[in-house]
Each structure stands twice: as structure tokens, then as C-alpha cells.
């Protein structure tokens, strides 16, 4: 790959994450959600995206962060899946970045293996680390159909 990959970035608290831009369909402000009783805890509900029904996954819960403060409304990052799409709930949105490949490194071994499995790698940006999430791995959680 000669060209650098572009990433859509976002924040959960102070953690800085990125997902390949080609997998991101759109970014939406907060949408009303319909709870799905009995579903896995990471599933926050269903949203109506112009007539399409999307499942909203709480990324905080997925990466093991404490629940969002009350009253703070998450933002939807809608990503494309094999069979439709899914919305990831994040705290706030960053820029689209294309960091140099030279800054890339695999996630260190001592990162919590549960989180490490979700990471494609880490970019050592100036002043902060950009953690790249694997969108497919994100959707492999307990309660999800195989």
C-alpha cells in the first residue's frame, strides 16, 4: 500500500480511537433508541436510520470503560457490516487522519487481552496514541449470533 490509510477518529473519555474511513458510513448526532430487553449488555438499542433499523452498540461497554455520565449524549458512528450496518456509540468525534505508516506498531503485549483482541494496532502520534479498532472484531461478543 503506497497511500496511507485514512482513519475516522473519535474519543471515549481521553482514549483516542480510529476506524478505517472506508468502513464508516456516516456520523450522526444522538438518536432516540428503542431498548432491546434480554439482549447483550453492549447493545444499547435500535435506531431508525431513514427507515433502516440499526443496532446501536455502546463502545464504552465494549472496551470495558465505565458507563457514560448521565445526561451526556453519545454520537453514532455508523459502520458498514457484511449484512447491513451497526452504530457505535462514542463520546465525541475527532478529525479524519492519515498518519504515517512509520508510526504504526502492534498493541503491546501487556494490554488487557480482551481489549487487545479488538485492536489492529496503535499509531504513536505526537502527544497521544491512536488506537485502531477492528470493526469486525468489535461485533464478536457474547450473545451475538455466530
Amino acid at each position, binding site marked *: 500500500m503506497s497511500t496511507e490509510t485514512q482513519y475516522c477518529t473519535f474519543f471515549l473519555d481521553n482514549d483516542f480511537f480510529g476506524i478505517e474511513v472506508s468502513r464508516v458510513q456516516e456520523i450522526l448526532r444522538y438518536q432516540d433508541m428503542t*431498548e432491546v*430487553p*434480554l439482549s447483550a449488555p453492549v447493545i444499547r438499542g435500535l435506531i431508525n436510520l431513514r*427507515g433502516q*433499523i440499526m443496532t446501536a452498540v455502546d463502545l464504552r461497554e465494549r472496551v470495558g470503560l465505565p458507563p457514560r455520565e448521565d445526561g451526556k449524549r453519545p454520537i453514532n458512528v455508523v459502520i458498514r457490516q457484511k449484512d447491513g450496518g451497526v452504530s457505535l456509540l462514542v463520546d465525541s468525534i475527532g478529525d479524519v487522519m492519515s498518519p504515517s505508516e512509520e508510526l504504526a506498531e502492534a498493541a503491546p503485549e501487556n494490554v488487557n487481552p480482551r481489549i487487545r483482541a479488538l485492536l489492529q494496532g496503535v499509531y504513536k502520534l505526537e502527544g497521544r496514541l491512536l488506537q485502531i479498532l477492528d470493526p469486525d472484531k468489535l461485533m464478536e461478543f457474547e450473545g451475538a449470533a455466530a
Partner: protein
Amino acid sequence: MSELDEVLQEFLVESYENLDQLEQDMVSLEERPEETEIIASIFRTIHTIKGTCGFLGFSKLEKVTHTGENLLSLLRDGHWKINRPIADALLHTGDAVREMLGHIETTETEGDTDYSDLITELERLQKTGGLEDGSSEVEAPDDQAMNAVDATPAEEAATEEPDDEASELAEDLDAKSEDEAEPATQEAVETVAEAAVQAAESAARSVAPSPKAAQAEQAQQRAADAGKGAAEQAIRVDVGLLDKLMNLVGELVLARNQILQYGNSQQDPIFVSTTQRLNVLTTELQENVMKTRMQPIGNIWNKLPRVVRDLANSCGKKIRLEMEGKDTELDKTLIEAIKDPLTHLVRNAVDHGVEGPEDRLAAGKHEEGVLLLRAFHEGGMVNIEIADDGGGINTDAIRSKAVRNDLITQDQADNMGEREVANLIFKAGLSTAKQVTNVSGRGVGMDVVRTNIEKIGGTIEIQSRQGHGTTFRIKIPLTLAIIPAQVVTAAQNRFAIPQVSLLELLRLEGNEAAHGIELIHGTPVYRLRGNLLPLIYLNHELGLPQKEQDPDNPIVNIVVLQADERDFGLVVDSINDTEEIVVKPLGSELKGLNTYAGATIMGDGAVALILDVIGLAQRAHVLNEIREHGASSKDDLAGEGGERKTLLLFAIGEGGRLAMPLEMVARLEEFELERIEQAGTQQVVQYRGELLPLIQVSSVLGGYAPRAREPHEKLQVVVYTKNGRSVGLLVDDILDIVHENITVQRESDRMGLLGSAVIQGKVTDLVDAEGVIRAVDPSFFAQTESAIA
């Protein structure tokens, strides 16, 4: 496949249609051999295929159809009459053509199958007419002459001068019939001559300004002949496009619902009237788009006469297939979905339902069996009936087989009505087994039939009268895409329930709400017209907070649902409107939840989940395990030894733990101690306007330490009813209802006890309820028996 050019594609589509027509025609021809119109239709069909495949260069296909056509022309001219061998051979010709078309579709070649046997057979039939003695010495008209007849005028007219062609052809034929048909009899000569005249005629018809126009005219003529005069008014449309249209209309319906809801709060008269117009138009559009996808059920029925004919012949039975309501329309996807189940049911009816001719005559019936297919619309559903007048289902055989296969217990079997027993044939365990008997062996794949029908939101039921026949009744919705649903609320969440599974809505108020719901050891039930209706609390099942009841004005809303022929009540916080909803699938991350059938978008734009009634019932264990699908239930049935029973557990005295089969329990009641009165030596209680005699179980059985009773404690009574007479068994506590494999560990010689078993890890005595009653009132059973005698 993608390389197939348009001409070829069109040829395939057209030929398949023609073949379907051919099969129908063949079967009806056998019934009405005199009708020359049918023969003419078959002839045209074969001829069209032959003409086109010659044009496309499929020589093998051409050869087969050509030989078939020769035989047909003899039939058409009355040279031979249709009979079994001829019909078989012609149907096989159709099969062969279909096979080759299949090859052409996939590989663009005709395949390697050798059809020379078929051709030889067809040629032999041309000579003998299927009459084995070969009585007629008549030689078939010479092949070459026939070839000449069969040259398709239209084709050649397109390449040659029409005028010349006609005369040439006629001359040619004349010459040939003179020169070469000499040994043939007069009849044969006539055949050829007539064919020649016809060829000349059609060639003459094609005299037209340009060859192309001639061809077009011919095609039109043919279409008109075949009764397809609608050709100009119909076009072929890709089903994918129709699907897309349907999806768009679904979205439009949702948008309409949203606007309607918003419109209700608006005053502007123009907006309001426009909204209403939009509403009307959308509904009309929806109906019409749905209509484009509608197909008459006749489209799949048309294949059945052939199925029945072939199968009946091979079983040596005589069966007449009758059809009513061929024009009944339903959605294309549904047509596809019921095709296999329907065929299966028809095969079953022929194979096992209708008896052989001798048996029928012996039973005083006409030797020809009748299989009736009926379709009609009723209450927004399509009803399809498959009725035979055969021997009916041997319920006794099913009973014993089901018991042997551990599907039901002997007690259950004894208490089952004929209809319930008949419905057992849909069970997986029974149907995968070997045939029950010759008569009632309907089984293989019946569970699949039911599963397939239920998958599309349909139901199937069976009615059978021994000696008089069996009727299967299938009910399916008109369409799957947009369904009416009941909207309910539980803890501020809205849920949609498909109206198909809804039986009725109940609202309990005041006293009824406070006391109408009774508990059988924690399991809530409601008495609905004398029957116990198990209740499920939606909030509880879905882990939602319970609604706070207003103590002054309690209200309970119950939605009575049916899942798998089992009724149950779903308690919800409130019951809202019914709405037309568009079913949308849930993402794969939610597929594991069987409580939801999908989701939909409501009028206000919010998403609502659609409840899966069967899934919910299974989750709440309202459905008996044996009703659950497939092998898993069979496995745990077979897992342990012993008998699997549903038992009522209750306590007597200090530490006395007893059980009796739940089937023997009519009802469970609670009475205040004060209500017990004395009638002679008998304790009784006034109950439903009658006196209910009470039996103190502990005193009958003896040996249990009596327990101190608190004042005002309620008495627990198990009501046992037989033949309209009831008796109440007084027990101290109702403990539980269990469904377990019971192995009697120790036979008991104590009166009123059958023995002991370990249930839920504790030793439990099994009560012989009838023995207990008999001990107190020996006349109870005698009286009931004499009462019915």
C-alpha cells in the same frame, strides 16, 4: 450463464411455460380423450418448441420433439386414441425436453443423455398406437413425408419468398405422398394430405409485405390460438423489480403513518385534507403493488394432476383430482413457500389416504377415490384444503406409536381426543419414525410441512374421520411484507404482536383484577370460560420493571395468544392500537434472541420490536417440551429411564410430600376453614352452586403427623372431576408442578399409595387419587359409571 444471449433466455422461459401447459393438457386429455382442442393445444406446444430449437441448432432436442410431434399428429387426426402407453410416452417426452432445457440453461448444451429409447418407443407407438396386439396393420406415414409436413412455415417463409414457398411446399408434399406413401393405407394418405393442406394454408397466411411481418403475424396468431390473447396487455417484469417496489411501498406506508400521526395535531385544513388524500392513495398503491405480486394458486396446482396421476398409477389406485378456487391469489413468495408442503400433502393423500380400489369397494365406496383441493379467501387469510375420501387416520395406531416413541405418556394418550391424536402426526418424533401402519403412515416429513407453513405465519390443522377421509386445512396470510399487528406497552416499551397469533383481548378491572388471577404455586393462571389460561407477564419475561398497580383501581390487560395450538395469556401494561407494520429483520448481533421476530418503525418514527409469540411461549415454558422442535427434546426424553410425567406436588402433615399426575387435577381451589360445612358424615363446601364433598387425604392415608393449623388459614383443595361429579381432596400445601422422569423406587402396599419416587431430590409418595376417593366413597365411580350408562 451470464453469456446466455437474450434469444436463448427467452426460448427457455417460453419453453418452460409451454411444458407446464403440456403436462396439464396431457392429464386432462386422458380424462376427456375426445376433445380435439386439447390435442391441438399439445401439438402446438411441442411444435413451437421444436421450431425454435431447430432454429437455435439444438438437434437432439429437435429430434425428440419431432418424434413426439409425429405421434401427436396421428392422435390429432383421430388415427389413434389416447391411452396409457401413449400418454406415458408423451409425458416422458415432456420430461426429456425439460431435462435438456435444464442442461441448456446451465451449460448451453443439450447434455449427454441418450434418448434413443424414448424415440424408439415413440416410433413404435406411431405404428401400434399402444395396442399391444398390433391389431392395425396400418403403417405409419413415412418419416420423410412427415418431415416435410413439419417444416415450420414461418421459419422458411422468413427466408424465402412467401408465395413460392406455399406452392412449393404443397407441390412437394403432393409429390411425396404419391411417390412414397403408396404402401400406406388410405388413412395415412389422408393424414399427410391434410397436413399438407394445413401447411399450405399457414404458408399462405404468411403472405405479407415483408417476411418479418409475416412472422410477427404468425406469432400473434399462435398466441391468440392458445387462448393467450392478452399478449399485448401483459409484459414480463423481473421479480426483483417487484420486490423493490414492494419495499418502497413498505417505506411509504411507514412515512404515511408518521405523517398521519403528525397530522392529527395540526389545524391547517389544507394540510389535513392533503394528509387524508395521501393516506387513501398510499393504501391504494399498497394494494395494487401487492396485486402485482399476486399469483393464482392454480400456478402450483397445475403440477399436481401429473403427480397424482403418476403416483396413483404406481400404487394401482384410481384417484380423481378435483380443484376449486384455482383463481385464489396469494403473494409470489408465499406461493413458492407452500409449493413443497402442498405437494407433500397431496402425495401423502394419494399414497396413504385413499385406499386401493378393492378396499374401497369393500367399504361400500366408489372405486375411484376423490382428492379435493380447495382454496378460498377468508378473514384476510388464504385457506387451502386438501381433502381425500379415504380411510382416515387410524388414531389408535398413532396413539400406541406415540406412546412407544415416548412422545406422550399412556395417560396422556388415553385422555386425548381424536383430533389431538391426529395432530400428533406433525410431531418430529413420530414422523421420522417408520410408518405407523399402511393406512395411517402419513408421517415422513409432516413435521417439516408444519414447520414450513408456520415459518410463513401460517397454520395447519387436520380433521380425520375414520373410514370417511382426511382433510388438511392450511391457513396462510396474503402477504408477508406488511402485516396487521397489535401494539402493546410494557414498562414504556412498545411491542408489536402479529395479529395472526392473537385470539382475544381481556381487560380485568376492580375486584376481578385484584383476585381474578390465581397462582398454582407461583405460576399465575386465569380462568377463561372455565379453562385455565396460563399467564406470562411480559415485563417479567423481558426483565423489565413491573408496573405499579393503582390500589384503588387495579387493571390487568391480557392478550390471549395462540402458539403451536396452545393458548396462553400475555399480561401487558396497556393495549394500544392495531397498526399495519412492515417487518424488518434484526441485525445478526440480535439473532440469538428468539423472543423477537423482527422490528418495525412506528407512526412516530420510533422503532418497536415485534414479539415472536412461539419464542416467548418457549422462553416462559408455556409450551410443553414435547412440542418443541426437533431432536433436542427427543434426546432429553430418551436421556433417562423411567416415565416422564407432569406431577402436582403437595404436602400433607409434617413432612409428608406427595405427588399425583397433573392430568387428574381438574382445578386447584382455596377455601376458608369457615366455609366447610357438614352434610351427614361428609364434610362439604358450597362450590359453584353445588356441594363439593371433601376428603381429608391425611386421614385416609394415615401415618402422617398432623400439622397445627393456624386460625383463618386457607384450605388447599385439589378438585378431581369425573363424568360431571367432583370431589375435593384436602391437602395442606400445594408445593409445585414438575415435569420429570419418574422411576418408582419402592412399590407400596399402603392403601391409597402407588409407591415412592425421588422428585426434586426428595422422597415423594405417589398418591393413588382414585384409590383414596374409592376408600371414602366406594360408590363414587360406580355412580359415575351408571350415570353415563
